């Protein structure tokens, strides 16, 4: 045992020496480098893996079409396990080995942690998996963008839909006790009363809660027309849905982007039927005219999750920003890239989003309400594309 342990130690020491000495510097030609802290493992891996595919695919398409003014896009990334410390470590590793122009970050925590560093460096812009409303503030976070509507805007899209379909309806808010979950609560209540909707119940569930029976009792008592879940990926929404269905309530259930993947809901089965939610992009299988979707289906014949679309669109925005900055003849840095990004208006996404989009503030506030059909296992659109006014 002793011998093997010592051998192991030696191996570890050797590996350390190896990485310290041999950290290879990536070839720095004139390519444009996009870095990424991606959650390829851990609790957010399902999204991270899809995001990685989406981004890589779009960059491949862009490079095939000649890159940005002849310059190729290079995508370098590492796994973070969805831990902020790891994300920061990856950022430092990648930035010390590459001259990075744009970055993809995997969480709100990371975005906020690295924001001061971005400001100090001033050499790149960053998008990511976080739709946190707090980030949608160009004053506070000048080099960050959100590739879609922020969480307040997402819930806002749902509220507009409700007000349109069922004026004066009652709503319950169920949020997880996390930063992610609590993000839109306050603004949602204001917005709901402006739209003449009544918030009849607010529930905050502790993280990791499995047994929701007491929460269901409260919802049974307040009998809302709609329940909006936010701050969850899947669990415990299905348990809420099935218990409330058991009780014969005709409530509608709604969710936000990260709980809108159809493959997640397929595993839930019948109870998932009729689940509504906001989606900023098209689904892989959407049948409406969309050349970019055709291209994706050509590259990947099997279903790609929502995270793929998010990554694909993020890459698209980054490429467009870089293209515009280069066209302006500017040197690529945080300021030139961000002002190029902000100048995007009426941009045609090739059908990834159903209408031409514009960047407003740090976000792209467009979205559409979809409904899950348990029989087909797919999300089906139930509204037009909604663009939020300021």
């Amino acid at each position, binding site marked *: *045992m002793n011998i093997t*342990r010592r051998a192991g130690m030696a191996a570890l020491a050797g*590996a350390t020496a190896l*990485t310290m000495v041999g950290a290879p510097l990536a070839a720095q030609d004139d390519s444009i480098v996009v870095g990424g802290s991606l959650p390829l*493992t851990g609790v957010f891996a399902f999204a991270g893996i899809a995001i990685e595919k989406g981004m890589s695919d779009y960059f491949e398409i862009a490079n095939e079409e000649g890159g940005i003014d002849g310059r190729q896009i290079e995508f370098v990334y590492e796994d973070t396990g969805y831990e902020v410390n790891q994300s920061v470590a990856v950022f430092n590793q990648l930035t010390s080995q590459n001259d990075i122009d744009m970055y993809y970050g995997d969480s709100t*925590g990371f975005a906020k*942690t690295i924001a001061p560093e971005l400001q100090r460096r001033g050499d790149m812009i960053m998008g990511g998996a976080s739709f946190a409303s707090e980030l949608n503030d160009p004053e506070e976070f000048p080099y960050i963008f959100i590739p879609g509507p922020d969480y307040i805007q997402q819930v806002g899209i749902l509220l507009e839909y409700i007000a349109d379909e069922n004026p004066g309806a009652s709503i319950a808010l169920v949020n997880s*006790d996390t930063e992610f979950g609590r993000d839109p609560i306050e603004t949602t209540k204001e917005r709901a009363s402006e739209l003449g909707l009544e918030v009849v119940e607010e529930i905050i569930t502790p993280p990791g809660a499995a047994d929701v029976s007491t929460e269901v009792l409260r919802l049974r008592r307040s009998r809302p027309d709609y329940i909006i879940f936010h701050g969850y990926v899947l669990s415990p929404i299905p348990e809420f849905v099935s218990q409330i269905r058991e009780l014969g309530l005709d409530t509608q259930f709604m969710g936000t982007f990260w709980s809108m993947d159809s493959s997640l809901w397929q595993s839930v089965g019948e109870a998932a039927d009729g689940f509504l939610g906001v989606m900023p992009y098209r689904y892989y299988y959407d049948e409406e005219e969309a050349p970019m979707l055709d291209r994706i289906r050509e590259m990947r014949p099997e279903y790609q999750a929502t995270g793929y679309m998010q990554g694909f669109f993020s890459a698209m925005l980054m490429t467009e920003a870089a293209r515009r900055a280069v066209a302006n003849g500017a040197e690529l840095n945080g300021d030139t890239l961000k002002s190029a990004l902000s100048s995007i208006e009426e941009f045609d996404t090739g059908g990834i989003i159903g209408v031409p989009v514009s960047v407003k503030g740090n976000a792209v506030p467009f979205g559409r309400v979809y409904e899950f059909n348990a029989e087909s296992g797919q999300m089906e659109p139930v509204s037009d594309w909604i663009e939020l006014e300021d």
Partner: protein
Amino acid sequence: MIIGTAKESYPADEALLTTAPQRVWMTIFVIALIAAPFVLSNYWLYLACLAMINVISATGLNVLTGYTGQVSLGQAAFMAVGAYTVAYLERSLGTPFLLNILAGGVIAAAIGLVVGLPSLRVKGLYLAIATIAASFILHFVFVNWTAVTNGNSGATLAPATVFGIELATYDRLYWLIMPFAVLLVWGAANLFRTRIGRAFIAIRDRDISAEVLGIPLLRYKLMSFAIASFYAGIAGGLWAYLFRVVTPESFPFLTSIFLLAAIIVGGMGTILGGILGAVFMTLTPELLRVVVDLASVFVPDAATLLSPVRTIVFGALIVGFLILEPRGLTEIVDRIRRFFRLWPFRT
């Protein structure tokens, strides 16, 4: 080769470093510490900063758990107290960073005293469990006391500044963190040259006979708690300046286990153990990443296995060291040292 360690005077024998090789090694180490920011890349500097913060916190925990025998699973929560204190002072009062960090340590120590109070009534496992409870309660406070902590969204803070120079890059932060680490480790080593350190060990080995020797148990247990939390508070304060944002998720329960693992792996009840363990545990995820990168040549999906493998390695290190090498890496280092000391006369 050194056979005897005869000393001319007792003071010389009481010194921290008693042999010539020890002094040589220490000199090399000090040179390496000073040279590091000039030779290491940004990435390795970041890891060095993180490792030193973990060294501080692990050394504190080692005083409490390794030397005094009181297991705590709340060390991360005390780091959070230090980090929030720094964030609050920096944001609201704009006081100098040295004062903020010190205040982080002091306030963490004060809360440590309160959490240590159950040691009045309970010991051993019950105390460990009480510290779990304390860390969950503190987490609740961090989420809900929004006036101070800014709740779930967390508190962001400006970099520490010295004479108008912002300590925002890792090569500068290194000069903030390294002196703290050196000073605190040196201080901990000093403690165990005096009656206070001896009293801690006595409480660990046999608390009842310690009492008969005139060691007031409660006072010393609380003192040990306060020291551990003070170290955690300082480490947390430095962490706040390193990451510049503090959220309730910054110091999860897992960090407490991480620190406990660090002192088990390094060696409980030795100063060197806290250092070795914290550095080793900080670098382990990076080493695993290298291993997984190498493995991905043979196993295509290796990257997706990294996180679970990390979790397993983490637990297996705790279990493995406790069963096979309870005295940790320190013992392995000792064996190597003994080997070379007698070399070439005995192998």
